[in-house]
């Protein structure tokens, strides 16, 4: 119950982020979720797309450093405190979350987050045992 995430190294210079995003849109790749972690010198663009292997190929062909990871997409419900509840379950089970970012899926007013953890299997099991809904690729990409 994980999905593929692409991380792209982006130099912290004007226009560099938009160049990468334009490259994807020109290839007809649909962006479903995005987060940008940045420092003064560089940024890491993390994306969930409908065609990850095509995106990987296009980005690498243009010389981008790209890395793929499996991440856990989780539904955090429509009530306040949903994300906190999920993070609490993970914390109680000793699972560190490297980073997380939110997105909105197709035809739904549910909020979702992407979780990046060290061990996906452990995290997925713990979340399932605690009744947290995980997103299937079908739900993710409509």
């Amino acid at each position, binding site marked *: 119950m994980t999905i593929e995430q692409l991380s792209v*190294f982006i130099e912290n210079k004007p226009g560099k982020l938009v160049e990468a995003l334009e490259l994807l849109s020109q290839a007809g790749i649909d962006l479903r979720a995005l987060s940008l972690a940045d420092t003064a*010198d*560089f940024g*890491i663009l993390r994306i969930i797309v409908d065609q990850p292997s095509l995106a990987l190929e296009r980005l690498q062909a243009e010389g981008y450093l790209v890395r793929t990871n499996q991440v856990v997409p989780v539904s955090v419900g429509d009530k306040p405190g949903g994300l906190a509840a999920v993070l609490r379950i993970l914390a109680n089970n000793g699972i560190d979350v490297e980073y997380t970012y939110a997105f909105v899926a197709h035809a739904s007013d549910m909020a979702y987050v992407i979780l990046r953890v060290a061990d996906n299997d452990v995290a997925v099991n713990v979340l399932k045992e605690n009744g947290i809904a995980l997103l299937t690729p079908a739900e993710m990409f409509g």
Partner: protein
Amino acid sequence: MELYYQPDIERMSRTQMRDLQSKRLVSQVNHVYTNVPYYKKLMDDKGVKPSDIASIDDLHKLPFLTKEDLRQAYPYGLLAKPLDDCVRIQSTSGTTGTRVVAFYTQNDIELWEESCARALTAAGGTKSDVVQVAYGYGLFTGGPGLNGGSHKIGSLTLPMSSGNTERQIQFMCDLGTTIICCTPSYAEYLAETIEEMGMRDKIQLKAGIFGAEAWSQEMRLRLEANLGIKAFDIYGLTEISGPGVSFECSEQTGMHINEDHFIPELIDPETGEVLPMGEKGELVFTCVSKEAFPLLRYRTRDICILNQDECSCGRTLTKMSKILGRSDDMLIIKGVNVFPSQIETVLIGYGLSANYQLIVDRVNHSDTLEIKVELTPEMFSDTVRGIEGKEREIHNKIANILGITSKVTLVAPKSITRSEGKAVRVIDNRKI
């Protein structure tokens, strides 16, 4: 089996070599004293007469020449033959601010090309080889020198010059290049591009001759693995002739100096004292066979070690180590002597690209060092912590080795300008 281009010279006994050098030195000093007023004056000022030089043991009595002398005497002041007898000019890129213009008679060209032929032969080159020369041609000595050497041994010569990387690789594959000659940084770029183009199994290279730039043992191993070759170092400078002043043999433990033409000495750069074999010092050359531009006791500013240990290749020519630094472009950062090659060794040890840049500056009267180095796919992490952790690790390692702090910045691949000739390794913005 070791191949030699001129075995009688390359394997000459030390006694015979000393005799040959002495004989040539005596006649060269007379030639220069008679024909180069600039050097005559230096000798007169030092109270040295040509008759004081009876053998190589008297070499130390002669005055030094430096780059400053070349500047003073520009353009004809050190010329020892009428221009009518000269057939070629080569020049340097003038990276240290002064441009060197060197003159060659036909004999000078011959001995230079023979020197390069010895280097190519030591790298396994024969008339059956296809030699791709990807050094720049023109005023730069790299292209013409190796080109001439390749002709001498009768190899099929591909005078590609530098640049146009995809075409280089296409020719390499289509025409079956077996020996590539270029700068080591360009060789790395070629290797990367070959990989990207998916041509690795189409190349037939067996050897590479890489010079004109400092490179480390780590870089050698990487080039050998990535190109499937044996990588040989070659050394030279326009002032002395060009590439081929010294060259590596199959043992790959230093470069044999063509000392029948270029007598090496090692000196203490501070005092000018001649140092014994095995010590580290500044390399000085005396050209004993050249006619048009025969520099005597020219200070190269290159720091290295000389030895005459027996070499497994059978050559008796004195060997010099890799250049360990420069006696003039050594960086002094916060009072610490820093050789870029030390930093390069650390970076390559971390699996990083040899494509790096050192930016030295002075902020609030204190020196700063920024090390920019290109990130590799293996080093890229999807977390900021991962990348910053690497930067910190490298910073700590360099602090350990050099005793200075630096700012390490990992940057995108191919974002550091790489000229296809010499890489700009150091940018010193200090106004001192």
